[in-house]
C-alpha cells in the first residue's frame, strides 16, 4: 500500500530535495543575476552586450529547453558529464532564473537616486566599489518585492526537473498518484500545502527584510 500519510517520510524527503534545489538554484541565480545586472549598468560596452544578449536569450526561452540543454545536450558536448542530478538541476534552474533576477535588480538600480552613485564617484570610488558599497545594497533594498516573486516562481519551477528523474516533490506526487489513484484528492492537498508553505516562507522573509530596511532607505 502506498498511502500518502502512512509514507509521510517519503513526502518529507521529496520536499527536502525541492528545498535543496530551490536554495542552490536561488544562490546561483542571485550571484549570476547580480553580476549580469552590474554588467548591464557598467561602463564596458562589450560586457553590457554580453549581459543583454544572455538576458534576452534565456528570458525568452522555456525552462524545459534549458533543462534539456543541461541534462541532454550539454553532456553530448562534454559538459556536466557524470555530474549528480541535483547539481544539473541547480545549474538549469539557476541559469534560467538569473536573467529574471538581473532585471529585478536592474530596476532597483534605476530606483537608486543618481546622486548616490555620483557622491560615491566624487570620493574616489571605482565603479566596482561604487556598485558594491553604494548602489547594489540600495538596489537590493528597492527590489525586494520583485526578487521575492522571482524566487517564488523559481521554487515552483524546480518541479520541471521531475521530468529528468529527480525525486523531488512533484515527481514524488506523480509517483503516489500512479500507485494509489483513490487518494488523489488527499495527495494533491498534501503536496499543494507543502508548496504553499515553501512559498509563504519566502514571502515572510521578504516582508521581514522590507520592514528591517524601511528606516535605511
Amino acid at each position, binding site marked *: 500500500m502506498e498511502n500518502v500519510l502512512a509514507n509521510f517520510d517519503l513526502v518529507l524527503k521529496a520536499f527536502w530535495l525541492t528545498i535543496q534545489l530551490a536554495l542552490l538554484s536561488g544562490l546561483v541565480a542571485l550571484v549570476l543575476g547580480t553580476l549580469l545586472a552590474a554588467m548591464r549598468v557598467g561602463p564596458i560596452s562589450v560586457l553590457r552586450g554580453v549581459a543583454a544578449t544572455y538576458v534576452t536569450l534565456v528570458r525568452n526561452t522555456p525552462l524545459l529547453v534549458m533543462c534539456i540543454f543541461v541534462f541532454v545536450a550539454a553532456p553530448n558536448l562534454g559538459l556536466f558529464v557524470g555530474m549528480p542530478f541535483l547539481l544539473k538541476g541547480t545549474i538549469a534552474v539557476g541559469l534560467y532564473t538569473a536573467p529574471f533576477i538581473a532585471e529585478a535588480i536592474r530596476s532597483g538600480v534605476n530606483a537608486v537616486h543618481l546622486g548616490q552613485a555620483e557622491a560615491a564617484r566624487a570620493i574616489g570610488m571605482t565603479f566596482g566599489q561604487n556598485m558594491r558599497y553604494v548602489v547594489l545594497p540600495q538596489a537590493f533594498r528597492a527590489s525586494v518585492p520583485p526578487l521575492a516573486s522571482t524566487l517564488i516562481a523559481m521554487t515552483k519551477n524546480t518541479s520541471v526537473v521531475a521530468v529528468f528523474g529527480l525525486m523531488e516533490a512533484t515527481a514524488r506526487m506523480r509517483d503516489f498518484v500512479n500507485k494509489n489513484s483513490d487518494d488523489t484528492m488527499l495527495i494533491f492537498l498534501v503536496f499543494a500545502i507543502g508548496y504553499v508553505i515553501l512559498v509563504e516562507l519566502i514571502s515572510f522573509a521578504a516582508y521581514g527584510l522590507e520592514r528591517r530596511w524601511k*528606516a535605511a532607505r
Partner: protein
Amino acid sequence: MTVTDEAPVGGGTPRSGEALVELADVQKWYGQLHVLQDINLTVSRGEVVVVIGPSGSGKSTLCRTINRLEPVDSGRILVDGSPLPQEGKALARHRADVGMVFQSFNLFAHKTILENVTLGPIKVRKQSKAEAETRARELLERVGVAHQADKYPAQLSGGQQQRVAIARALAMEPKVMLFDEPTSALDPEMIKEVLDVMVDLAERGMTMIVVTHEMGFARTAANRVVFMADGRILETADPETFFSNPESDRAKDFLGKILKH
C-alpha cells in the same frame, strides 16, 4: 558651532600660494549648447573663489569638470600640477583629492552618519576602521553633528545632512573642496549653520570653489568672485569691488535682481 583651536591647514600664510587648480581654454558642449566657453581660471592654494551667475550659465558644469564628473571637449584642467586622468583607477584617485559638496547632500541613504564619513577613508584610502572612526568623530564634532553619528541620513534635518556631507568630503583630506549651491536646498533657518562651517573651513586655509548666491558668505570668506553668464566668465574681482561696483551690464542686471528679494 564648535570652535577648535587647531592651526589652519597649510601653516602660516594659508592665503598665499601657487596655483592649485588651473583651467585653461576649457570648452564644453552639450550637443548644440556651448555650455563652457573659453574658461580660464586659476585658483591658488588656500584661495576661496565664489562663482556666481544666472541660472543655466554653467556654474555647476564648471564645478563638475574639476573632478571630471563632466568631461570637457577641449582645454586643460590641472589639479596640483597634474592633468585630469581619463576614466579608471587614476581618475578615482584624483577624485579622492577633490572634495565635493552637492546641493542635494547625496548622503548614502543606507549608511549611518558615521558610516557615511568612514566609507571613503576605509575603502578608498585603505585606513583601518578604528582610525577612520576616530577621525570621523572629530569631523562630526567639528561640524556639530557628533551626537547624530548612529542615525540614518533621512532622520536628520537638511542643514545637518549638509554638514555631514562636508565632513564626509573632509574625511578624504582633499586638496580642494568644490561646493555646488550647498545651501540652496535648505530652509532659511538652516543656511547659517552650513555657512558657518564653510567660513570656518575657509579660515583654516582650505582651498575652496563655491557656487553660491550667498553674498554674506562671499563678502566674509571669498578672496575672489567669478561672475559667469552664458557659459563664459565675464568678470573676476574681489568681493567688495564686485558687489559695489560691477563692471559688466550682465553683472549689474543680475545683482539688481538678486538684491531685490
